[in-house]
């Protein structure tokens, strides 16, 4: 009988290990979320996942950074082909068309309707939603971290150089650059070969096309036309400014990119994403005054809305049914006004819904010092109703096309290549990419 006491205790323990623990764990449905953000922004995504997991007891989201937007797309494709895809993945703007034609996702609207959530899709800002929606305006993916390009300038330097205006036009930017140079500032404006502000955002706010067929929205047979628009003159202007050493190339290859150039006060003006607003505020010494403005336009231009950048969340096809309930719950959670506000506060990203923006404006968020100026991003995005040229860019292989143009800009600015000739050549190369994409997806149409 002595033995049986120990035995029964032992058996009891075994039973609790065997039946008790798994029973508790089985209640939660685990699912995966891959994202591209890294560094500080990546940490904030982890915070969001933690908040969601703590908010309910049915699901557990496992969030993994893939370190970069392009690698997230690559890894998502590899995983999908191996049937090991995550339930949710974060895909950047340039990968939108690749995703749309993949047939590898569950449309946002269908997912939410199937799982009993009602979402007011009209609540999303038009400029944002149109980027990720079908031609009929139905969202395929969830806008998540949205941004647009802004113009940052050092107010202290402006004052020292005796500049008493805000640079709204490129004529004014030139004037400011000359005054800064005269006042002894070696690098009035810094730029790199990122096409997003220089080509894409510029074309949108000046209502210039990047490609035919409404930048690709009306068919896969679109062709690039940026070598025939105002963009050419804009590059020529930049080239002239660079030759006079008023605009200075700052890239990683040269040892310093534009944001560090601005925050180290090496350069006094840059154009970059509003998502950098938080970083710039944190990095510049507190006593330095700086401002943001909407991207400048050429004098006499009727400003159009700018393009949305950043990424959206796609729910991938082929996962077990239970995971979709979790994915829908997570996406619904992100869309709540409290979460939208939190996300927008801790990053520089803008609220993607009108109610989210309204709430933040009402509680005075944009009046407070470190966040001041961020509302201009939304003003810029919703400056006018979207036109054919400002709805978005829906071109296949756009990552590669961007790289081709970046290389062209490099040749123009670093090696004195002829502006028109280089752009003509690049458009031809870009069109070859588009034709190959069209052939790869022959028989499919945009919806």
């Amino acid at each position, binding site marked *: 009988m002595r033995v049986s006491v120990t035995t029964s205790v032992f058996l009891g323990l075994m039973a609790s290990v065997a039946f008790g623990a798994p029973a508790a764990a089985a209640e939660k449905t685990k699912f995966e979320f891959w994202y591209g953000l890294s560094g500080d922004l990546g940490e904030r995504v982890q915070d969001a996942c933690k908040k969601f997991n703590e908010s309910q007891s049915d699901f557990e989201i496992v969030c993994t950074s893939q370190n970069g937007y392009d690698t997230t797309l690559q890894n998502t494709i590899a995983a999908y082909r191996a049937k090991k895809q995550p339930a949710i993945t974060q895909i950047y703007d340039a990968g939108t068309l690749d995703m749309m034609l993949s047939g590898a996702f569950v449309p946002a609207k269908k997912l939410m309707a199937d799982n009993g959530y009602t979402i007011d899709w009209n609540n999303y800002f038009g400029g944002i939603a149109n980027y990720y929606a079908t031609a009929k305006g139905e969202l395929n993916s969830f806008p998540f971290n949205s941004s647009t390009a802004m113009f940052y300038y050092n107010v202290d330097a402006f004052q020292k150089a005796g500049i008493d205006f805000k640079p709204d036009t490129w004529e004014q930017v030139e004037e400011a650059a000359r005054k800064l140079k005269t006042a002894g500032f070696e690098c009035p404006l810094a730029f790199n070969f990122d096409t997003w502000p220089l080509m894409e955002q510029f074309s949108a706010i000046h209502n210039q096309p990047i490609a035919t067929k409404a930048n690709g929205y009306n068919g896969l047979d679109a062709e690039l036309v940026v070598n025939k628009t105002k963009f050419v003159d804009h590059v020529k202007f930049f080239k002239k400014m660079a030759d006079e050493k008023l605009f200075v190339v700052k890239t990683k*290859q040269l040892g310093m990119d534009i944001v560090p150039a601005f925050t180290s006060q090496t350069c006094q003006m840059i154009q970059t994403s509003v998502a950098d607003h938080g970083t710039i505020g944190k990095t510049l010494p507190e006593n330095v005054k700086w401002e943001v403005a909407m991207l400048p336009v050429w004098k006499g231009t009727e400003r159009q809305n700018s393009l949305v950048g950043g990424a959206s969340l796609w729910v991938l096809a082929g996962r077990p049914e239970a995971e979709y309930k979790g994915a829908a719950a997570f996406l619904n959670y992100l869309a709540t006004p409290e979460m939208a506000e939190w996300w927008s506060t801790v990053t520089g990203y803008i609220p993607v819904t009108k109610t989210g923006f309204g709430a933040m404006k009402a509680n005075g968020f944009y009046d407070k010092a470190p966040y001041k100026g961020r509302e201009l991003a939304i003003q810029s995005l919703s400056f006018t109703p979207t036109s054919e040229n400002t709805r978005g860019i829906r071109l296949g292989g756009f990552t590669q096309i961007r790289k081709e143009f970046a290389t062209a800009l490099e040749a123009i600015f670093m*090696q004195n290549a002829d502006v028109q000739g280089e752009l003509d050549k690049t458009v031809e190369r870009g069109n070859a990419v588009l034709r*190959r994409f069209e052939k790869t997806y022959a028989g499919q149409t945009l919806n």
Partner: protein
Amino acid sequence: MDKRAAFRSWWLPSLFALPQIILILLFFYWPAVAVLRWAFTLEPPFGGAAEFVGLANFQEVFADPLYWNSVGVSLAFALCGTLATIFIGLVLALAVDRQLPGSAPFRFLYILPYAIAGPAAGMAFRFILSPERGLMASVNAAFPDFWNPAKYGSHALILVIVVFAWKWAGYTFIFLLAGLQSVPRSLIEAAAMDGCGPIRRAVDLQIPLLAPTLFFLLVIMMTEGFVGADTYGIVARTTDGGPNHGTDVMVYRIVEEAFRGLNYSGASAQSLVLIGLIMIFTFIQFRFIERQVHYK
């Protein structure tokens, strides 16, 4: 006497070889077959119906002037990189082989860079040799534009070759040192007694005896320069193929095309061409150069 190996049955050695065979099938032949298939079809990134297009992918590749540019860049990179690694490795090996007091720790130090991943080395050298902030900044201050890999393709090519040589010289060093140490000491001593200085001994005695090792390294390093994973890592981290395609080596182009451009078919076609080139090179090297190599 039984001259056969220790195994009397076929199944035991097969069993030992099995893990290796599985690994090779899984990680070499399977992808190779996929590449072969994709090179002749248009493969949608997410999978699905791929259309057979015959030689169209190859035609596209060969019609692209930038492809031929990358062939030239690759040749220059592999050739200069190979010669640099072998030369540096040889100088280091000759120095260590002289067995001067205190030379032992250098064997270890010289091999060390080989243990560092290519991308990490590339990243470090991007800062070290940055035209605006690194070692060359002061030279540039005195002679503007003396060194600017962000502007001149030739400088950028030198930059990636420097990183490659820094990383791989340690590898060639190991082989060359081993080769040198198998040269009979009596020969060296006899030469020394005949009044040959260290340089004369190296040129007339040691290097000729090293010929088989040097030839082996020539083949290995050329292949590494052309298709090595390090080559991609170094280029991606230092110059991104630029400026203006100045360092756009073939492997970099393939990876970019496949993963950035999501053009699996075009990248596969390029891979097949590259494999073909490597086979031709190796064939030429063994067929014609090996004959000139003096064994024993």
